[in-house]
């Protein structure tokens, strides 16, 4: 195909062979613990390994030399390729490069530079990209554009236009780019995921007539690189990822003169499965045929030849057994040899080969791989169940769970949100896949039983005692793909807040935080509160705290207040003793949560002040105030010292009257406390 237009002699030489480098490693553990046994690129998406999608788009685009770069589980990738059709193609050669010590894409490119296999412009792509874009024309375009852009145009990054908050946009790739309008040259690049503002340096504007800021770009993780890219990585050892590279090139633009461009594709599909959220999004996109012709019923992988496509995006392999009365609602793909019992309802899900699904099962948004057994009356919501998982009778898997290889849970158990389970307790054979410096660890949690017949152990990322656990929480929140709806509403309110910030008043943030906190508590109302759910609740509240920028000292009070407030919000007619008892109930129920926040003497004081404020606005609370204090004291949330100290404080605001009346009201309690303290101190002195 290159011959046809080879008028220019110099280009002829370059266009001799088209090359692509596939990075078949993710260099992280987001899919843990699944990736203990299999590299991420071999995990199935719509029952086909991710790598196959990438290789299919490369080979069908006529790329002649494809290098698959693998580190972790390299042997498995090799084996997979040699067993697939890609090993026997005549038009393309697929070869693997194995390197064990690689920790990043940068390392991989340095390795590739050392092997000096790159002869011309090449496609750099991850092994988990699903795309129907015409890669060869992208490569052509990059080569051609060099005539106008010069040889220093080192990279064309491929983006797809896609509005912010689109489901398929990866949250980590939240990037704003400043481009030269006429050429799409990248002038400035900023990740804004954790920022409220985008900062554009002045000189970008002063030196260009027209600049476009784009926030509507989805990073396809496909890059068309010039041959000097590997050597640039070689020269700069601190380039680990493409982001580092982009930043480095832009910073040194004046010195080195290298430029970068982007190509925006409109009608084609491309996305990288970089985390669980994206796994969910891309799977849905494939089932709803956005990636056509890469869809389950298209037989680009041999074993798929037997899939039929029905309406409502239901895909059935030919030897599926469906019992009478089972319902496949929409966007469902059921793999070969699977049987589904009667009265079972399945929506938005992919089910692999040879699974057995019982009766009265509900499956929504779940990814069930091969050989999974789900017994009668189970429920699965937005989770991944790997090969060999068994759910015994009446088990319930909540959103965002991962049940890794051969995990067995149940019967009659509820797995709380975002739980990750593995089947072997701990591992001397530290066989972790894509291990990072902060390598993960499975913790033996004997306290957790996941049903009487269970074989499951909790997997969690390492608690790093030196580091504040904020980052890790963020990480977890990002990864719980089941929680997508909620995280979106969060950012929604954040937007609104942003706008008001011009005339910012602190109160606004607090209000919204408070309502959100109440909502969060309501959500947990019907759940049993145990260790995990308290943890989860804590995560949610912490994340709320971060997103609304709530001072930790305000948080103490707000949380206690919210818990007391909750019963009143649910039933405004409650009165007197009824109200008190439900408040007490709530306090008892959430005491672990409160204690997590309200610990030090200072935090207790903050809590007390906040409650006092609460009294000022709410008469019911005022009338019950002493009893509530007493209860808090009984629960060991408030210490007697704190209460007494608080009692002795002078009025803070202008509402002296109320201050006095509250003091009066609680006087008996104080008296009792003082006596008790005296007694105890007497005892102590004895």
């Amino acid at each position, binding site marked *: 195909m290159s011959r046809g237009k080879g008028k220019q002699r110099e280009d002829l030489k370059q266009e001799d062979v088209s090359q692509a480098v596939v990075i078949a490693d993710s260099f992280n553990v987001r899919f843990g613990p699944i990736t203990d046994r299999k590299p991420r690129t071999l995990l199935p998406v719509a029952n086909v390994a991710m790598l196959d999608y990438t290789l299919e788009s490369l080979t069908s685009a006529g790329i002649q030399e494809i290098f698959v770069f693998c580190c972790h589980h390299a042997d498995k990738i090799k084996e997979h390729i040699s067993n697939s059709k890609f090993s026997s193609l005549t038009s393309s050669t697929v070869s693997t490069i194995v390197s064990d010590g690689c920790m990043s894409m940068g390392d991989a490119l340095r390795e590739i530079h050392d092997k000096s296999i790159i002869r011309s412009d090449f496609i750099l792509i991850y092994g988990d990209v699903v795309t129907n874009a015409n890669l060869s024309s992208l490569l052509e375009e990059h080569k051609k554009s060099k005539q106008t852009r010069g040889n220093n145009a080192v990279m064309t990054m491929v983006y797809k236009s896609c509005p912010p908050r689109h489901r398929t946009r990866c949250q980590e790739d939240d990037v704003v780019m400043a481009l030269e309008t006429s050429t799409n040259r990248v002038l400035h690049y900023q990740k804004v995921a954790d920022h409220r503002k985008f900062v554009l340096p002045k000189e970008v504007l*002063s030196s260009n007539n027209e600049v476009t800021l*784009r*926030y509507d770009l989805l990073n396809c993780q496909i890059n068309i690189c010039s041959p000097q890219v590997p050597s640039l990585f070689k020269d700069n050892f601190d380039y680990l990822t493409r982001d580092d590279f982009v930043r480095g090139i832009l910073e040194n633009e004046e010195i080195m003169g290298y430029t970068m461009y982007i190509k925006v594709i409109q009608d084609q599909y491309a996305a990288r499965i970089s985390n669980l959220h994206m796994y969910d999004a891309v799977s849905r996109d494939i089932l709803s045929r956005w990636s056509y012709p890469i869809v389950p019923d298209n037989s680009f992988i041999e074993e798929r030849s037997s899939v039929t496509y029905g309406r409502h995006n239901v895909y059935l392999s030919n030897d599926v057994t469906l019992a009478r009365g089972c319902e496949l609602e929409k966007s469902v793909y059921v793999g070969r040899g699977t049987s589904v019992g009667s009265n079972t309802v399945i929506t938005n899900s992919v089910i692999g080969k040879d699974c057995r699904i019982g009766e009265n099962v509900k499956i929504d948004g779940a990814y069930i791989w091969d050989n999974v057994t789900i017994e009668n009356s189970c429920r699965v919501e937005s989770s991944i169940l790997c090969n060999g998982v068994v759910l015994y009778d009446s088990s319930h898997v909540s959103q965002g769970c991962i049940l890794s290889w051969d995990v067995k849970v149940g019967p009659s158990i509820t797995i709380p949100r975002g739980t990750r389970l593995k089947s072997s307790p701990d591992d001397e054979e530290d066989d972790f896949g894509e291990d990072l410096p902060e390598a993960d660890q499975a913790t033996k949690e004997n306290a957790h039983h996941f049903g009487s017949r269970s074989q499951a152990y909790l997997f969690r990322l390492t608690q790093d005692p030196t580091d504040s656990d904020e980052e890790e929480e963020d990480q977890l929140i990002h990864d719980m793909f089941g929680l997508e709806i909620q995280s979106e509403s969060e950012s929604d309110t954040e937007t609104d807040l942003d706008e*008001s910030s011009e005339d910012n*008043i602190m109160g606004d943030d607090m209000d919204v935080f408070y309502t959100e906190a109440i909502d969060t508590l309501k959500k947990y109302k019907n759940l049993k509160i145990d260790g995990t759910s308290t943890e989860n609740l804590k995560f949610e509240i912490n994340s709320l705290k971060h997103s609304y920028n709530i001072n930790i000292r305000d948080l103490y009070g707000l949380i206690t207040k919210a818990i007391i407030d909750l019963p009143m919000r649910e039933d405004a007619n409650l009165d007197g003793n009824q109200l008190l008892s439900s408040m007490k109930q709530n306090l008892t129920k959430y005491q672990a949560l409160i204690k997590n926040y309200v610990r030090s003497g200072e935090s207790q004081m903050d809590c007390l002040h906040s409650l006092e404020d609460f009294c000022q606005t709410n008469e019911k609370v005022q009338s019950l105030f002493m009893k509530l204090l007493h209860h808090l004291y009984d629960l060991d949330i408030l210490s007697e010292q704190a209460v007494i100290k608080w009692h002795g404080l002078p009025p803070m605001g202008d509402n002296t009257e109320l201050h006095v009346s509250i003091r009066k009201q609680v006087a008996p309690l104080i008296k009792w406390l003082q006596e008790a303290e005296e007694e105890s101190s007497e005892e102590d002195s004895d």
Partner: protein
Amino acid sequence: MEFQPIVMAGGPGSRLSDLTVKCPKALLPIGNKPMVWYTINMLEKAGFEEAIVVVQEEHCEEIKNQLMDICAVKIRLDFFSLDDDEAGTADVLRILGEKDKIKRDILILSCDLITDVSLHNVANIHRTYDASATLLLSQLPSQYYDVPAPGVKSKKRLEKDFFGFDEKGERILFLTSEADVEESIEMKKSILRKHPCINIKTKLTDCFMYFMKKWVIDYLIEYKTISDLKGELIPHLVRKQFLKPKKSDKDLPKPDQSVIVETTKADILSFSKSEEYADEIRSMSTWIDHRGDMEDCFHCSKIRCYAYLQNEGVCLRANTLSSYSESNKQVGMGPVKRKVQKIFSALDIGKDKDVHIHPSATIKEKSQVGADCLVAEGALIGERVSIKKSVVGKHCKIEDKVKITNSVIMDHVTVKEGSNVQGSIISAHSLIGEKCDLKDCIVGNEQHVNPMGKYTNEAIVEVEKMMEI
């Protein structure tokens, strides 16, 4: 009429100070017409029947006289004289508002705008989006501002403004002048979320033509700190577009004691009242101004600033020396001559394209007057005179063997024999002595340049004035 035009002709012309000593800026001639005439003429052509002209009290009579009598303007002009020459353009609007002069939405124009833009194009943008303010921006003028200016050389560069537009290039999302930016520009993510593709243009000039809602004046009356229109009010409005309406009390969580008690003035949003049915119509209509999310039209923002970009034709603001002398040339000649003639086809400027010389002017033998020149009535041009790319005012006397190139000669100027005038501006009633050589100079009102004088890049103005400086 839908809009009430207000012509700002009271400006001191601070950047033309060498020329405005004796003559108000609004009356400085461009192509032998006072510059304010062009603005008024544009309104007249667009079908306006009346306009408010804001002038300084001292110049009121003179301007009235010029416009009414000499230029025979038909439109009904309501002269509003200011006694305060410190008042900024927004202050002027406030004063007009307080005096209850403003009844409808307004169209504000500067007296120094020379353009062939069709007003209805700008007005249509204003109407389509029911905008709070609509600006006329032009990318043309930069070429004119870069030409060397007559008079003393200054190093002042044209100030750049950064305008950020939405995808369609009509709504202004962000506006800041280069001088106000220190190192970087910050942009809120919430704005980017609503408008994920923002186009920033840096080569645009604000032409000082604004369509504006009446409520903006009410707002100005309440908030007295804003005194400049271009520099303060417009950027203020642009910023406030993304102000979120404060929650009304009933939306707030009830038992909320932590709220700081506010004593607020009515905020800007409460001023922006839309017409009775506008919101309702919009909610029922399928028309929407954006895509990519499910939000309502305009993302419910009540304040909206738009711009019309003029890409071709003429657009000049004669507010600096270079643009002033350039606009004289443009009006008289050059590639845009015909266009200008078409627009300003009234009176003596080119009804017929050969009549660039007024019939009453006398030109003696062997003199050459280029087709790109304008010679006004009663001018006397001697023998062997050569005039190129210049404008010669009324009753000027150009003696023999004078050479004039690239210059503006105002009314009643005498240029004595054998002088050479290049790239200069000679103000009214001046006298240039024999065999003078002036290059890129400014000669002030009633100045006498001694014979044989040679000047380059100088301002020859009244001595007292020089002393003041």
